[in-house]
């Protein structure tokens, strides 16, 4: 059965077990439902170990699941696909390659000839503000700049679905705010659907149309909060009383899980 026609990502009743070395089975996800509509920006937030990364990897096609269905653009996920691209928390740049070769990596994998992939990569480097750095090596760039390269690499393959696992968590707080606005800027010019994992509540609210709150042991969705802040969002958004209210609401939901790790399971 196929999901709603306008769903970019559709996760239905998905459960996942990990089997550890000694054969012990642990339930990482318990009957999770989640929908990301086309063009939507959805964030997942939840305590450490609640299965956020697990879920993103399943959508990315690099991890299997035990029960339920995962669909991307109406098609069951069977592995990685050209319509999806991932941005990694630790950037995952290849340190022996220059910036432009890193950005072209996905295109090279897909057999795009060098002049063409460099052309595409140059355009994207410009759009992430790194036009002058194509011949630099990752180690010569700051963390924020490295993640811009990571973003450009993901965008280079012209995906329709962008998966981001805590992409800004290794970046200093100020640079992070700039990256958030820049990401929204780029996203607004495309019809990209984004699934974004974060631990930062303000980040989740600022970026998203929907914030999905997850609980742990085993991982499950506790609540989906609609973010009705107008777009385009900018620095003024951060001072908006509605923004503060929504951020507070996310924190209220999460606080209980963190102070009492078992409260959520009992509920």
């Amino acid at each position: 059965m196929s999901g709603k026609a306008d769903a970019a990502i559709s996760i239905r009743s998905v459960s996942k077990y990990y089997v550890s070395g000694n054969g012990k089975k642990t339930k990482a996800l318990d009957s999770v439902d989640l929908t990301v509509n086309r063009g939507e920006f959805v964030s997942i937030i939840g305590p450490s170990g609640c299965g956020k990364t697990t879920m993103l990897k399943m959508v990315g096609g690099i991890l299997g699941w035990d029960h339920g269905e995962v669909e991307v653009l109406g098609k069951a996920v069977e592995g990685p696909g050209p319509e999806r691209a991932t941005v990694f928390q630790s950037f995952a740049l290849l340190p022996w390659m220059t910036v432009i070769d890193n950005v072209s990596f996905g295109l090279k994998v897909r057999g795009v000839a060098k002049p063409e992939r460099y052309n595409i990569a140059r355009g994207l480097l410009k759009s992430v503000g790194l036009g002058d750095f194509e011949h630099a090596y990752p180690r010569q760039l700051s963390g924020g700049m490295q993640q811009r390269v990571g973003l450009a690499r993901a965008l280079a393959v012209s995906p329709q679905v962008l998966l981001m696992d805590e992409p800004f968590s290794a970046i200093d707080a100020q640079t992070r705010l700039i990256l958030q606005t820049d990401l929204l800027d780029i996203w607004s010019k495309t019809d990209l659907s984004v699934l974004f994992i974060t631990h930062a509540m303000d980040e989740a609210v600022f970026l998203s149309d929907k914030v999905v709150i997850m609980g742990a042991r085993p991982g499950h969705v506790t609540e989906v909060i609609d973010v009705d802040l107008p777009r385009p969002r900018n620095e003024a958004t951060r001072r908006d009383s509605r923004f503060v209210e929504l951020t507070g609401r996310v924190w209220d939901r999460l606080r209980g899980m963190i102070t009492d790790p078992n409260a959520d399971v009992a509920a």
Partner: protein
Amino acid sequence: MVAARPARPRAPRWRLESMADRRLGRLAIRIAALVLFIGIWQAAGDDSINLLFPTFTRTVSVWWDLVESGVLPITLLITNQTLFVGFLIVLVLGIPIGIFTARIKLMDKIVSPYLTFLVAIPMIAIIPVIQALLGLTFAARVTVVVLFAIPYVVINTAVAVRRVDPVLTEMAFSFGASRLMTLRDVVLPAAVPGMMAGIRIALGQALIGMVVAELTIVGAGIGSLIADLQGRFRVAPVLAVACSIVIEGIILMSLVEWIERRLGRWSKQ
């Protein structure tokens, strides 16, 4: 879009200069140490009879005689054939075995005990076995070189491949890269610095293996030349020949270290 602040593309000048200064300083210390060493050698030598330890100058002049007569160049050539063929086999076999050992559990189970064996026992002890199997041949000498050196290439390659950040292979996979592509474009380049370290150690071992093989499996090359001269109590030529090998070793090791530094530049910092 906010333009990123331009980073300095190169290290500032003063750092380069101080690096050059440091390099010069290191060179000066090395030359001073060498001069001191030669001085002590010269003073300690006694050229009155052949049996005694020769002076530096006499060793050099004997060395030159050996070069001029063509004896040394020919023996070096023969010896290096063993080294060259042996080391080539070490690389061609060792690197793939290392990769498979890292990637395939069964291969690891099969190969590991032999590696432990080769590293743990004194290699000299199995030379008689090789001699019994292969006789006083070129093949026997090459085998010794290979057995001396190959464990270090296999072990270091396997460790380097295992240490590749799994996030990088995951990244490649997420972009749809095949296993072969991931191996070629991600795993191998990432493992090069570790592999080169193994190759450097293996070269040292191969040099030892080469001389040991010729000294014990008498047949040809530097080893047998040394054995022959020693038999006639000609200490100065023995020393001259030994020094040639040492110098060749230093040159080859420097070459490999240079390649290692070039290929591994990205992994520094």
